[in-house]
């Protein structure tokens, strides 16, 4: 934990911005976050935008802990994921419940991003379908629905009951593939979100929910209640961005990013121009190579610091584990248990303690790196050949010399193998840092997955793979320094 504090101090040295907006890991959230960030910058506030904060748990924890001041959320999500409510909750009740946690909820931003069913406009016209009730009268239509929608109680099972849908032609399909299947006529109907960029591109008809089945996912801002005092102008900007973005605007903004491959910042600029008039600024984000270099540098920094800390803590832990059976079992069980904690769960636990950004990412990677190092140190020390172990005990060496001059050097090949394993795993796992605003090569990967943009994924994946190879190669060279020459001879055990 000493190391953890050290890391915290290290990462905390950068001067903090006065106001921070967060966003989740999908384009609509980025655009809304960037729109507010631009509004703040225009108002002269020192602004930071933490993009790509994992799922609702992570970003909400970040808000409660004060790591961010505001982020865009949806009423349906607040009800289900944050308040764990069974039935519908009125906006007033929602506001009251959130206020008890120190969180305020703005008025609606102006659009609903809920579930809906959609058809190609032309196909809908031919079948004469405008509403879900119309759909129920056309059982010959084929429904290709996402697996999540098929499984959720507020998805297809409830919908089928409410509208007495009788179609037998219902298939599960990957959401990303549904649009292609729709366009080629293999399916007639699919589930969408009401602000999907594809609505405009494929000229989809969103079927009217005439019996009011789907819960509302009205976009709102969730903000810390102390923001108004700390930064009144920031709170005013949030006010200005409520009630001004309707579905059509949001669909166009999403399409600029998802289909047009423009950046969230550019799309946010255009959105602000639509709302407040005026010209939108040009792109200002540096070249491809600059962004790759920046992400790679950040990635390497995260890996190096967490690995170094894991070595400094893991080797002594391994030595301690090798000393006594009881302590050894406890240490190995403890580090083994850490390894089984899913990374997202670990991040969600770390955020209330350490906020978001680089620090919790470093700590998570540090914890994940421990096991191979501790275990290999332990195994290396406890499996020394019997004659050598006896010789080391019979010579009358001081405990210090026995450990540092004999046993650790003899165990060094095993220890280095553990460090190497940790390093290579670490390079891969560090992509998760992007989920909590830690940056690195996970950023383009995460964005690419959201945008179904292979080029963007490769911008992160290729450098990450090269980095893993390079790290492996680097450690092969390091072996020559860390493992005594006598142990690298072909006949070392003669």
């Amino acid at each position, binding site marked *: 934990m000493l190391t953890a504090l050290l890391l915290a101090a290290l990462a905390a040295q950068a001067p903090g911005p006065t106001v921070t907006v967060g966003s989740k890991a999908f384009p609509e959230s980025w655009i809304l976050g960037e729109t507010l960030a631009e509004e703040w910058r225009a108002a002269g506030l020192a602004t930071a935008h933490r993009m790509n904060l994992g799922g609702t748990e992570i970003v909400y924890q970040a808000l409660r802990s004060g790591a961010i001041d505001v982020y865009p959320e949806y009423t349906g999500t607040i009800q289900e994921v944050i308040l764990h409510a069974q039935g519908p909750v009125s906006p007033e009740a929602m506001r009251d419940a959130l206020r008890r946690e120190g969180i305020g909820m703005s008025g609606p931003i102006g659009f609903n991003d809920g579930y809906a069913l959609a058809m190609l406009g032309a196909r809908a016209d031919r079948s004469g379908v405008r509403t879900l009730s119309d759909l129920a009268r056309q059982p010959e239509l084929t429904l290709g629905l996402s697996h999540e929608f098929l499984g959720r109680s507020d998805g297809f099972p409830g919908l089928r009951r409410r509208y007495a849908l009788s179609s037998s032609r219902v298939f599960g399909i990957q959401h990303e593939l549904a649009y292609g299947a729709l366009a080629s006529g293999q399916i007639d109907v699919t589930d969408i979100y009401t602000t999907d960029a594809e609505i405009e591109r494929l000229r989809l008809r969103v079927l009217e929910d005439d019996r009011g089945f789907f819960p509302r996912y009205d976009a709102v801002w969730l903000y810390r209640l102390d923001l108004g005092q700390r930064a009144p102008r920031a709170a005013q900007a949030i006010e200005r961005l409520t009630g001004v973005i309707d579905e059509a605007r949001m669909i166009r903004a999403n399409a600029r990013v998802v289909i047009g491959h423009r950046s969230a910042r550019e799309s946010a600029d255009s959105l602000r121009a639509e709302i407040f008039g005026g010209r939108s600024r040009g792109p200002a984000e540096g070249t491809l190579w600059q962004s790759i270099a920046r992400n790679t540098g950040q990635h390497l920094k995260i890996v190096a610091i967490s690995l170094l800390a894991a070595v400094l803590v893991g080797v002594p832990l391994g030595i301690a584990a090798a000393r006594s059976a009881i302590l050894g079992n406890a240490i190995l069980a403890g580090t083994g248990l850490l390894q089984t904690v899913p990374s997202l769960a670990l991040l969600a636990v770390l955020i209330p303690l350490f906020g978001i950004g680089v620090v919790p990412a470093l700590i998570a990677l540090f914890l994940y790196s421990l096991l191979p190092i501790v275990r290999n140190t332990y195994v290396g020390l406890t499996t020394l050949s019997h004659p050598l172990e006896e010789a080391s005990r019979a010579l009358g060496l001081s405990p210090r*010399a026995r450990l540092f001059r004999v046993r650790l050097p003899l165990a060094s090949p095993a220890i280095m193998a553990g460090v190497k394993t940790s390093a290579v795993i670490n390079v891969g796992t560090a992509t998760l840092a992007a989920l909590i605003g830690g940056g690195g090569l996970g950023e383009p990967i995460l964005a690419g997955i959201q945008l179904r943009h292979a080029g963007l994924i490769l911008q992160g994946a290729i450098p990450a793979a090269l980095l893993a190879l390079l790290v492996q190669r680097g450690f092969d060279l390091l072996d020559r320094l860390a493992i005594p020459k006598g142990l690298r*001879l072909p006949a070392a055990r003669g």
Partner: protein
Amino acid sequence: MAVPASEPGVEIRDLRKSYNGTPALSIDELDVRASTTLALIGPSGCGKSTLLRLVIGLLAPDQGSIRIGGVDLTPATRRALQLRTGYVIQEGGLFPHLTGAENVALVARDQGWTRERIERRTRELLDLTQLSPDLLPRYPGELSGGQRQRVALMRALMLDPEMLLLDEPLAALDPMVRSDLQRELKSVFERLRKTVLFVTHDMGEAGYLADEIAILRAGRIVQRGAPRELLRSPADPFVAAFIRAQRPLGAMAEELDRC
């Protein structure tokens, strides 16, 4: 068999050791006079290596006492006694990550010896063991079996200990190298006059190197005496059969006949 009080070597009383309830060693009394060589011999599993491990402090006895040079072996005195004892095992136990020279100097350096003192002592030992100085910078993996055992002997003698414990030091060597080293060991023993306890399974080697031989069977000493004594009057059929089974002894029997 009484030991003069002026020169205590090793004094063992009521020593018992068992592994998981199986008795491995049971010695009521065993004394080794200072500056004499005792060979421990017997079939495998007779407890001879166990005895050596108890004396060097690698094992703790279930009961009984071991005194070395008048000092009781206890956890508190173990390290000090180990420093006064040189120990060589079958494969030498040289550390593969250290060169020959580093292996030899390891304990002296830990004891804070100066570089000059270490170098001076190393030169003395090179003379004694007839090892070529060119071999010292090599790693154990680059040395032959015989060279390794010479380095191991140097390491054991570095601090000029009063006692040497050798656990089948030559068993892994081929016969030619082995007889060379036997000759060298004998000259080292004669020149240094240390208290030596060595384990072997070779009666000829024991007779050649040791002042006295103790024959062990199932953890007990069945007979102890000078080599000739054992040959002339084996204490029981086991000793007689054990001696007969050792082929190299033919040479020694002839030598005996001439006496």
